[in-house]
């Protein structure tokens, strides 16, 4: 289920009044992170829209992501995304999170956030200004309003990863591979140990 499609109208409507955010850095240079923290300061006072920084995926409604998704953060990002209860929104903040920007096809990144999970709102900028982040949140809430009223709204966007020529890091497969390698090394070692005395004899 991508984006806020899973909720009933009441859930969507009440979400407009109190979107709690979770900020996760998927591999950013910290430029966008600083701008997001600036957005949360009393100067911009986002609490007047009911926005709170939840800091806990189980309490959050909006996942705010900065930076290109590195192979290491991919599994963490999926984990956080699955922990959030529906309905939920995903916001890609900054050029890197939107598209991967200068890191496209780099050996260690997946590209933008939308190569891993569906994204509802893209906020471009390097780094994006707090005004742009607030504008993104307002656009996200407009989308929720449309969905609650039963009007058509753009669906969450998920890019196909097949065209990116890199090996996707799978922790389970990697663990299985490592285990097989250790087992092979061990059996080779025991074989060697058995062989050694024979040679002496």
């Amino acid at each position: 289920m991508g984006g806020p499609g899973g909720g009933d109208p009441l859930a969507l409507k009440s979400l407009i009044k109190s979107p709690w955010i979770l900020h996760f850095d998927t591999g950013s240079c910290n430029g966008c992170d600083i701008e997001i923290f600036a957005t949360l300061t009393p100067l911009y006072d986002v609490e007047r829209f009911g926005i709170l920084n939840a800091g806990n995926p189980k309490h959050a409604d909006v996942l705010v992501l900065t930076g290109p998704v590195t192979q290491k953060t991919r599994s963490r990002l999926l984990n956080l995304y699955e922990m959030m209860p529906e309905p939920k929104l995903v916001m890609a903040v900054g050029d890197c999170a939107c598209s991967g920007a200068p890191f496209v096809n780099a050996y260690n990144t997946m590209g933008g956030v939308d190569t891993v999970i569906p994204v509802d709102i893209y906020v471009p900028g390097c780094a994006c200004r707090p005004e742009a982040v607030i504008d993104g949140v307002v656009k996200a809430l407009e989308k929720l309003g449309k969905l609650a009223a039963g009007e058509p709204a753009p669906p969450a966007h998920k890019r196909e990863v097949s065209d990116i020529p890199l090996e996707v890091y799978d922790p389970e497969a990697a663990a299985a591979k490592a285990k097989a390698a250790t087992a092979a090394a061990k059996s080779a070692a025991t074989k060697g140990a058995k062989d050694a005395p024979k040679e002496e004899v």
Partner: protein
Amino acid sequence: MDYLWLVIATIITVIAPFAVAVLAGIDRRITARMQNRVGPPILQPIYDLMKLLSKTKMLINKGQIILATLYVTMSILALWMFIAGADLLIIFFVLSAAAAFYTLAAYAVLSPFSQIGATRELIQVIAYEPVVLMVFFGVYLVNGSFSSAATDDMLILWLPLMFAAMILVLLVKLQKSPYDVAEAHTEIVGGPEVEYSGKFLGLVKVGHWYEAALAFAVISLFFGSPNIYVAFAGKLLLVFLALFIVILVDNSTARLRYGQMARVVLTYGLALTVVNALVVWAVQEGVIPWP
């Protein structure tokens, strides 16, 4: 106690969390103004609750949810008993049971944040319960009864130090700095609340509101008058005064460690109540001459 009053008590118990939600909204607004910003609407806590209750269910294990439900039930029961005019000591034990269920629910999940939060919650209970018990004893000294039914006596004139001790208890109970050690949002991400999500987080929030309602009800006990309108206005004013002091302290202090919390509440808090009780006893026995 007649049946009509029990029905009225039930109605008040149903309305109480909404009143506390409005108080929490006022709290957030005043906090915002103290930080030179606009702040959320007054009804924001109710919007938050509506959102939480309309989200999908996600749970770690059934035990946690059963214990959390028992916690909320016990909190509701404690408030209902208070309004119905039950014995303050029995209310005290029901409240302790609620705290115990909340702690057990926090221990029922494996998250280290929840476990640390549960331990802190226990230390918190150990810290404030003797103070609350002494306050109830003070009410007994003045009223001659442990009944929670409102009397015409102005308790705050007899028990001003106990009122001060109740402010300490309120700081702990409402999770306000410097004593927001159990939830400690920026340190252990919500402590006992960390593993609840969506509907169940909303359920726990309702439990907190009932506990807060009971704390405010104990505060309102300190004002009494033969005139029912004066009594009502005075009680409301006293609750607002206590809330304002709590908000002021919350915004001008940083969180202390849980050990410091226990030390202050168990020494200063308990000393205030004991001194006050001794003075009241001495006056009543004629040890200290009173005009």
